[in-house]
């Protein structure tokens, strides 16, 4: 809250200063407040306007504006950004109606593919391609591509592949953070031998009960088979009843349905995901797989740091041939215009300069490897960035979000809940989900 206000005042102040200065002294010395050297390459866009449409809302939106304030005042380009909570519904309408924004920050690969299908999306210009080749892993570039053509550079990102634990409890018990899947289970065995509960678990979430369990399977699928199989699974080329997915489900069962590790398996179904990790700091249960946002669910005053009450480690890999598998989310800067000023802004947003400037202001994670890790102030952000920006990272989006709603927001949730609550057999769970897949 305070940060966004500061941001707003800062940008307003900057605009006012720039205006007055340019009136008095002319353009040349107007930008004394900024170092304009990084923007020397962006020429001939002064006075032009670029429109951006996004699902990002205030206060984050104001922070974004503050992050590019130096760029806009140095180059003289005018960025008009508009956020809407109806973004997913409005963007297709605007594009179909010939009223597309210059740039859209699309948070789902599925929507990006649908937009590319309309034929209105422009392929990425050379500047963007250079930045993405230099700063992003191949899997990120794949996600911004449709049909082999690269369209959209990633912007922000977030990470799900974390395991929350208590550094203090680990130190007290002499446990070390595991770096392999088998190492993690060996640690869990050790905890069980010490009469402790290794894994916390809760998949309750009101009408969306079951989603954390779908994440667990997604993490295991990408770790076992990599991006290609993962994508085939999303498109149902690989079915749930495929031996590969069945094997992955068995791996989840050995992990989160092992009474030795989790205590009462059925209680996972009736525990809300928010409540699941509340006793980590006190040593009630030791590890919880949950996304980076889980930190905000912990009690106020919890010290979240590498030596504090609670911190997180990277959910280890399973298959050595799948390098740094990460599940998460992010937005992609998609262009509907190829005017030079639009391409300039597009290139700027994909650069390390913008990402660093944005990271300096507030909570935010970029998969751009050009951002120095030291720039992140929040330890969880820094940890996430380390894996998201790994040049070898195998990044995937949430599969259930990308599957048809009848599965991803329906049968997969309810069947996984039955899997935990009633001990329903894996092959029956898989068959029921496959049966619910909409016939094309």
């Amino acid at each position, binding site marked *: 809250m305070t940060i966004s206000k500061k941001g707003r005042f800062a940008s307003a102040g900057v605009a006012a200063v720039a205006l007055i200065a340019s009136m008095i002294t002319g353009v040349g010395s107007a930008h004394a407040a900024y170092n304009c050297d990084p923007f020397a390459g962006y020429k001939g866009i002064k006075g032009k306007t670029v429109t951006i449409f996004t699902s990002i809302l205030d206060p984050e939106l104001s922070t974004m504006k503050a992050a590019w304030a130096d760029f806009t005042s140095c180059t003289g380009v005018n960025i008009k950004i508009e956020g809407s909570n109806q973004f997913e519904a409005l963007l297709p309408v605007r594009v179909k109606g010939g009223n597309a924004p210059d740039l859209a920050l699309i948070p789902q690969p599925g929507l990006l593919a649908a937009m590319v299908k309309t034929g209105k999306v422009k392929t990425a210009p050379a500047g963007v391609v250079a930045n993405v080749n230099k700063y992003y892993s191949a899997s990120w570039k794949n996600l911004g591509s449709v049909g082999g053509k690269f369209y959209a550079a990633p912007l922000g990102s977030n990470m799900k592949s974390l395991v929350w634990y208590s550094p203090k409890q680990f130190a007290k018990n002499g446990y070390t953070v595991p770096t392999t899947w088998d190492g993690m289970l060996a640690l869990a065995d050790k905890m069980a031998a010490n009469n402790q509960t290794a894994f916390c678990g809760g998949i309750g979430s009101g009408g969306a009960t079951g989603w954390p369990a779908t994440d667990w399977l997604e993490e295991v699928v990408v770790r076992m088979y990599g991006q290609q199989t993962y994508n085939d699974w999303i498109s149902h080329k690989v079915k749930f009843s495929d031996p590969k997915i069945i094997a992955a489900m068995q791996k989840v069962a050995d992990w989160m349905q092992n009474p030795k590790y989790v205590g009462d398996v059925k209680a996972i179904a009736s525990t809300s995901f928010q409540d699941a990790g509340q006793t980590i700091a006190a040593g009630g249960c030791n590890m919880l797989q949950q996304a980076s946002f889980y930190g905000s669910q912990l009690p106020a005053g919890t010290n979240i740091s590498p030596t504090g009450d609670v911190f997180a480690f990277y959910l280890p890999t399973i298959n050595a041939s799948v390098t740094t598998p990460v599940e998460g989310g992010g937005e992609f800067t998609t262009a509907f215009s190829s005017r030079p000023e639009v391409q300039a802004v597009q290139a700027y947003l994909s650069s390390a300069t913008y990402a660093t400037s944005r990271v300096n202001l507030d909570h935010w994670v970029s998969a751009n490897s050009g951002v120095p890790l030291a720039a992140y102030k929040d330890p969880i952000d820094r940890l996430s960035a380390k894996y998201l920006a790994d040049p070898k990272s195998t990044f995937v989006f949430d599969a259930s979000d990308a599957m048809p709603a009848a599965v991803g927001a329906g049968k997969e949730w309810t069947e996984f809940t039955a899997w935990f609550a*009633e001990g329903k057999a894996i092959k029956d769970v898989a068959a029921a989900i496959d049966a619910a897949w909409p016939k094309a």
Partner: protein
Amino acid sequence: MNNFLSTAGPKFAQVFIAVFGFLAILAVVFWIAGRANGRKVKPVANIVFLGPAALLLILGLIVPAFQTIFFSFKGEDSSKWVGFSNYKWIFTDPDMRRVLVNTLLWIGVVPIFTTLLGLLLAVFMDRMKRESLPKSLLFMPMAISFVGASIIWRFVYNYSNRYQPQVGLLSAVVKTVGGHPQNWLLDKPLNTFLLMIIFVWVQTGFAMVILSAAIKAVPADIVEASALDGAHGFRLFRFITFPAVRSTFIVVLATQVVGALKIFDVVRTMTGGNFGTNVLANEMYSQIFVQFNQGKGAALAIVLFLLVIPVLLFNMRNLRLERSER
């Protein structure tokens, strides 16, 4: 704060425009009606008084009803006709069969319990000296929404894994009589009945107040006369009080049947329809608003509608009978 003020201003302006616009339209309509004379008075009056209601009924009820019927024969985005396949799904899918059974259980069990319990309490309260305090207390849950009540009851049925303390009230009670804490909400079919208790808890006060008012309205001379004839206790209730409040009893029962049929909030809040507790209204919601399947959602709505009709017809017949008796 700033934000609130800046958005509240225009909203208030809109409210004023809407209210005054409505009044202005009314004024115009009445002015036209007032100018009618002679033979035109009756038809104009009909239009003025029935027209708005009819128009709103058509727009708000009849058109959507037909639209829903059409949608129920179409696919998920209403673009293709799919015949009866949505209905076939409702009556053949194994999960849906559970949903139907649960809904029938709700209709069969809940109204009888709420109404009988309400009647029992009303009769007892009637004989108490200071009835207003216990009555208010019993009526209190009625002031809580089903979602609120469900959140309260979640603490009653709560069950925690071994690394967290048990805080569930029901488990605590069971423990004091020598049992073990249990994960109540996972235990089917018991869990459906546990959810019904919440509904009964909320609605019994309502049934009691209505029936109590009906009992109060039984003429004192009839009660006195029957007492002189030797009717006491249960006989008095069986032959005098109950026949006198019978029609109220049936109205309350019918209200409860409709309420149980539509039950949604309790199930959604407590279990999200999981663990074999799903009901029609909850499935309808998740089909339309979570899975974006218009067709299945509409078909479920039609099934719900068809189930309500007999209750409404029964209620109407009852009202008519009563009128003819008078």
